[in-house]
């Protein structure tokens, strides 16, 4: 009822609230813009959007959905890290413990796994949609390139995460995958050696893939996602279809 509204009003008068958000209620266009500019998380978003780009068929929310899945993966992944040791053979035991012993462990593990599968699908769908919309054309070329790198980062995240359960599937997938890497001319074997930290898929490889999966690649992804979002508005908003209905 009105109580919720008055509570919100009182909260806005609170000194702590004012020190964090600085501005009062966003009632005018100016204060609305300032609310977006003055917030680290919101400043990625445009102050104004065209109505067309809010329609479902403008994007099918594929980019937002990919980002949502990324957030789900970060949160569930950090929680899984509390129980996982990247060591042989403890890694496999920890994975089994998460499935059978830890409360909600099986839920978090499956959430992480399924969200990862879904994110690969969502990112691909996002890429195809942007491609068929012509979203790679000027002035969006740079953001298209950032998006392609983000697709690769997503795939690398999936691939490095694949080794971490340390089961037969993981072991042979990484064996096969790194052998594909080594088929690169001249530098292939060297890259495989660096990736595995040796010649075999062993303890070093597990630790390296863990660090890549939990630290390096997520940091790269967060940075590129930031640039990606920011460039959408700097490049003049989404690529939307011209309205044909008006001509008819």
């Amino acid at each position, binding site marked *: 009822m009105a109580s*919720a509204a008055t509570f919100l009003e009182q909260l806005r008068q609170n000194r702590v609230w004012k020190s964090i958000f600085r501005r009062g209620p966003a009632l005018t266009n100016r204060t609305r813009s300032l609310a977006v500019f003055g917030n680290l998380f919101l400043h990625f978003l445009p102050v104004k959007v065209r109505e067309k780009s809010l329609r479902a068929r403008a994007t099918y929310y594929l980019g937002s959905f990919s980002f949502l899945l990324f957030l789900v993966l970060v949160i569930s992944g950090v*929680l899984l890290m*509390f*129980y996982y040791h990247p060591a042989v053979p403890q890694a496999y035991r920890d994975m089994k*413990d998460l499935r059978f*012993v*830890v*409360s*909600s*462990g099986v839920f978090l593990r499956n959430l992480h796994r399924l969200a990862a599968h879904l994110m690969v699908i969502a990112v691909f769908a996002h890429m195809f949609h942007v491609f068929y919309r012509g979203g790679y054309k000027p002035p969006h070329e740079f953001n298209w390139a950032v998006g392609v790198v983000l697709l690769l980062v997503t795939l690398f995240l999936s691939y490095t995460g694949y080794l971490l359960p340390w089961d037969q599937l993981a072991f042979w997938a990484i064996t096969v995958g790194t052998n594909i890497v080594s088929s690169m001319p001249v530098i292939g074997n060297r890259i495989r050696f660096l990736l595995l930290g040796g010649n075999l898929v062993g303890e070093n490889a597990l630790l390296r893939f863990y660090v890549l999966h939990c630290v390096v690649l997520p940091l790269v992804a967060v940075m590129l996602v930031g640039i990606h979002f920011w460039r959408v508005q700097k490049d003049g908003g989404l690529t939307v279809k011209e309205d044909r209905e008006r001509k008819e």
Partner: protein
Amino acid sequence: MSETEKPGSGPASPETPETGGMARRDFLNEITFGALGVAGLGSAVVTYQYMSPNVLFEPPTRFRAGNPDLYPVNSVTFLQDQQVYIVRTPAGFYAVSAVCTHLGCITQWKPEDHLIECPCHGSKFKNDGAKVAGPAPRPLPHFSIALTADGELVVDKLETIRAEQVLKV
């Protein structure tokens, strides 16, 4: 959408309740934030449960300390793995914690001084755990000690007993 209609102007506007009830916007806001609150609270509970381990890989607190004949009379024996002193006096056996009651350092038995001494902040205890000097707030606790059916000492670190209680063998 028509440009002439402004919010709050028509009789069927969603902004104004017709009969003193709740505005549609307030209703939707409360439903949404209520649902988010319930979901958030539930996630917090489930996360708390997840973060409390169900199985611990810690050493057992109840352990066998071997045959009583291993310990000569008037001796203090430090059991490294369990961090417990097995003390044998003419009166009998007792088990004293080796963990300092100050900040949890592992104490050492100094036979030359006949004292248990903590290396961290200099607390000193007698061999029955009574405090002699230092910042330790309490004496070292005694753990329950008993004999098994086959005549071995067994100590339970979860159960503390009064210092006067001694196991006679």
